[in-house]
């Protein structure tokens, strides 16, 4: 069913996994949108007006109304465009998906990020925490193709950093965190995720992302 004139605008930053979550959600739903790349050292008036509290990307502006915070945006997209749902209908499974999505965000991303950027002193502890986080995800993915089951869902979208960014960053940092030897099931998921026909269109090109992060290492 064609909606009335829909205006969907998305303010983002291409190397950011948070921004990418929104891009994934929009592409998975087949939503047409206008994209604006933000320069965070020179924030646009539009960004400052639409996210005055945090002044951060991503921001989705739907028919003139702004929404901020990547996972809030993803849930909004899921509730507004009903095809290809990211969440199952059963309340318990929804609660479970939200739980895992939050866990990825709060417990997995920070130590994984720190493991790559920490100095020598903090590196060991960060790597240890990162490995614990990956172990938790390894147990959760089990034999499922995606966290969402047969297709990509909310948790897969939340875990895009684990599914794509980690591989690139660990190569730059010379670390072996997510490997097929250490976490076979999670590794397999990351391959499924990054080669998914729609997801792969939404992910930034590997060499571009590699070059971006490489230029930021000391």
């Amino acid at each position, binding site marked *: 069913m064609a909606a009335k004139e829909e205006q969907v605008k998305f303010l983002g930053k291409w190397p950011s996994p948070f921004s990418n979550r929104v891009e994934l959600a929009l592409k998975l739903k087949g939503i047409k949108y206008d994209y604006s790349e933000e320069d965070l050292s020179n924030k646009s008036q539009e960004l400052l007006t639409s996210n005055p*509290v945090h002044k951060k990307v991503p921001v989705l502006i*739907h028919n003139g*109304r702004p*929404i*901020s*915070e990547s996972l*809030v*945006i993803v*849930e*909004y997209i899921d*509730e*507004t465009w009903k095809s290809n749902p990211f969440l199952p209908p059963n*309340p*318990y499974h*929804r*609660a*479970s998906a*939200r*739980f895992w999505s*939050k*866990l990825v965000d709060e*417990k997995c991303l920070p130590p994984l990020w720190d493991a790559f950027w920490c100095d020598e002193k903090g590196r060991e502890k960060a790597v240890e925490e990162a490995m614990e986080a990956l172990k*938790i995800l390894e147990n959760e993915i089990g034999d499922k193709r995606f966290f969402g089951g047969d297709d990509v869902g909310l948790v897969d979208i939340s875990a895009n950093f684990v599914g794509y960014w980690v591989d690139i960053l660990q190569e730059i940092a010379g670390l072996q965190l997510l490997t097929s030897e250490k976490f076979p099931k999670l590794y397999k998921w990351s391959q499924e995720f990054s080669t998914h026909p729609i997801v792969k269109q939404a992910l930034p090109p590997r060499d571009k992302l590699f070059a971006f992060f490489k230029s930021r290492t000391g």
Partner: protein
Amino acid sequence: MSEGEKVVKLLGAWPSPFVMRPRIALNIKSASYEFLEETLGSKSQLLLQSNPVHKKIPVLIHGDKPVCESLIIVEYVDQVFSSGPSILPSDPYDRSVARFWAAYLDDKWFPAMKAIAGAKGDEEGKALIQQLGEGLALMESAYHNISKGKPFFGGDRVGYLDIAFGCFLGWLRVTESHIGLKLLDQTKTPGLAQWAETFCADDAVKPVMPETDKLSEFAKLLMAKTASN
């Protein structure tokens, strides 16, 4: 067995604002539940089994299925007990606004409030108090925009954002008395001051909102325990 017939247990502790959230939600739905109080300093076997990843309260156990994370539990209760009044707004945009502010409170505002007790020196304390005050100014503005003249963020009734924010009122009062400064009051935040009174008097909230005196005593106990560790 229908969802409404399954036994509901809630693992929690009376001083926790996060535990208060599902309790208010269950009260709104007139859902009966068994409250299993965890003791400070130790975690029950049931807690460790039902929330093995975080080992934290609250945990709702519905039938035999555990649901963790306070706001996730609130959304679950809203969905499952569908015959009671709605807690989340019905419009997706309004829901996104409510979720945005709840995330702000949990990620930025409450951690600042918690940090005040352990602030090292005047400078740090002052910065945190300022952050708290600025946050309340944001919430005052949000309250006016969202409630549109009605008593609650949720409109005529207590809703998701009322629950997400209101649960912190007890600890806010304790903090105010600790720093000797009122942050949420008639002068600074008139809308919120009225909202806070109405919220605390609500039938779903009153039975589970702890008295500020009791919380202060508990805070002292907690600080002594932390100091001795």
